[in-house]
């Protein structure tokens, strides 16, 4: 079947957006903080990355700017939620709305701008291999970075002391506090790092995936990333799987449309969402697995009582 290799390549690219955002949210949620502001953060980071690339021409700076924008907005969110104990859901939604509006306003003059010529990437020897080369080795470096992040995060959460502390804070901040860990400061760090990853996802979207800026261009991917983290029961590897699955089925449904398959395009458009939900629910159908994996203090405010 022709077109399989490009399909895989497109899947990796499309899935990276969700993967980076969902990994960032995963870090937040493992610490017990639910950041509903993902959509707004991605929009602001997308604008920051795009504007940086327009003015400096540098891809790398764009990603740094996006990460910084994500971290900065997450920091505001974190300060409110951790030290002022505002309701996490409401604050997150406020951040989402703010991000959408602010990015639209600040981005007005960037809608007519264009990025400099986009570089093409391919790994020197590996990308010449007939099928596998085109499918896997012609991606933007950030795609591979997302995979590395997943592995690193898996290792960090499962096998390192820092990850243990993070999980402890997410499960029972009172106990962690009693043990002497600076719970609020660690949560804040997690929020900022998570925000940086979400920001990188936004920057990837606006400088690599669809190199332009228009308001609202994230088009709901932030919300999908939030749902993805939950459906993947807060495990990095499953998050990556879910992200690629979503990206893959999205490309597949277009492929099917183009082939003239006799299913209404509206059903096919629903397919990515349905497929991702079904697969992840099946993987996580054991209620005990969910109970074990869900950070027990997710969404709840923490007051150190001493």
């Amino acid at each position: 079947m022709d077109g399989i290799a490009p399909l895989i390549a497109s899947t990796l690219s499309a899935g990276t957006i969700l993967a980076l955002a969902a990994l960032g949210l995963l870090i937040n949620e493992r610490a017990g903080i639910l950041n509903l502001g993902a959509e707004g953060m991605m929009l602001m980071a997308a604008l920051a990355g795009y504007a940086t690339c327009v003015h400096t021409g540098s891809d790398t700076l764009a990603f740094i700017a996006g990460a910084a924008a994500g971290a900065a907005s997450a920091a505001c969110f974190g300060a409110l939620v951790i030290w002022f104990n505002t309701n996490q859901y409401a604050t997150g939604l406020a951040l989402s709305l703010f991000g959408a509006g602010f990015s639209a306003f600040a981005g007005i003059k960037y809608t007519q701008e264009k990025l400099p010529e986009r570089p093409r990437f391919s790994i020197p020897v590996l990308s010449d291999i007939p099928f596998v080369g085109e499918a896997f080795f012609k991606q933007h470096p950030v795609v591979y970075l997302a995979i590395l992040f997943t592995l690193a995060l898996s290792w960090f959460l499962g096998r390192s002391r820092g990850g243990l502390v993070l999980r402890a804070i997410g499960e029972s901040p009172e106990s962690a506090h009693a043990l002497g860990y600076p719970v609020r400061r660690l949560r804040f760090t997690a929020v900022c790092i998570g925000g940086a990853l979400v920001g990188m996802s936004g920057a990837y979207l606006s400088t690599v995936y669809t190199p332009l800026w228009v308001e609202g261009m994230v088009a709901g991917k932030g919300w999908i990333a939030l749902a993805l983290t939950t459906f993947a029961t807060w495990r990095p590897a499953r998050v990556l799987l879910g992200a690629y699955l979503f990206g893959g089925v999205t490309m597949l449904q277009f492929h099917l449309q183009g082939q003239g398959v006799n299913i209404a395009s509206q059903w096919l458009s629903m397919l990515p969402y349905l497929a991702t939900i079904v697969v992840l629910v099946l993987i996580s159908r054991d209620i005990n697995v969910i109970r074990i994996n869900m950070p027990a203090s997710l969404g709840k405010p923490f007051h150190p009582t001493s």
Partner: protein
Amino acid sequence: MTNRSVPLGFAVLFGLGLAACGGDKPAPQPAATPAPVTAAPAPEAAKGPLKIAFVYVGPVGDAGWTFAHDRGRKEMAAELGSKVATTFVENVPEAADAERVFRDLIGQGNTLLFGTTFGYMEPMLKVAPDSPDVKFEHATGYKMAANLRTYDSRTYEGAYLAGVVAGKMTKTNTLGVIGSIPIPEVIRNIDSFTLGAQRSNPAVKTKVVWVNKWFDPPKETEGAQSLLNQGADVLFQNTDSPAVLQTAEKAGKFAFGWDSDMTKFGPNAHLASAVINWSPYYKKAVKDVLDGAWKKDASWWGVKEGTIDLVSISDKVPAETKAEIEKLKAGLKDGSFHPWTGPISDQAGKELLPAGQTADDGFLHKIDFYVKGVEGKVPGK
């Protein structure tokens, strides 16, 4: 650092940040651009400038549909100067809330309202009877009222002309169309594009994908990529962002601009742009109201009236094709050429328009079939 100084520090920073932002006013909402009223009232303008309001479904910076409408508004306002005072509201969704926006604008004294997308039809029909002195103009709709009329652009003419270029430029004989929402207007454009291509290249095939949105750059990118993966080397779109053109540029293939001139988004890939120009109609509509000559009729303007055009044709297109485009435009202007001239058959081969016969507006409005050469099935049929 005590426990309290950290949040205090943040509160101070936050407050400073907000204060710094407080200076400029974010205004993605109504931006009034009143023209200066002349000091000594001219003899015929005893009542001051005509207050006109435009309601947009998207942002004016979308370089597409809404951008074209706003350009029309600006050119009309520039020509009519102090006789009009225009204002616009952008990002109004095609839902019940639009009704509130229309009523709000009437309350502000606007007596001519333009609703620039299909989905405002029902809200405008609700508001129109309550304000009989206000005139309503609805773009791309089909229902009218005593004080509400419709206007539209013959985008299919632009699609046909683009098809003529596409047919010449394709090497794989496979064209790709990124469709927005499967309504007759879009299906008609897909068909016209294919008919235009078949004019010089009867062997072309058109593949279609639907993103089910008017505007969604990531989805448009994915759809375009998918078509390229399936062998299409010239892309056409009915969606409103430059994402398709950019995807073609990245892949080294060809594409067209839609709604506005998109050359700069893909200089190597860009073949031509089908540009909608609403200013001729807006000037006429406003003059109708100013002269008291407003009549409830449906306007469907095309190349002849200057509402649609194929511009910025690339130098990669051979000279004889460019000449043919000019000839076809002249034919559209003097009425001697009509893109929908028979014989035209549907995919099954059934002849829908016999040889030599041209389709009338009634036929064109009801197109819900793909012509021969388009692959796939119309969604929902």
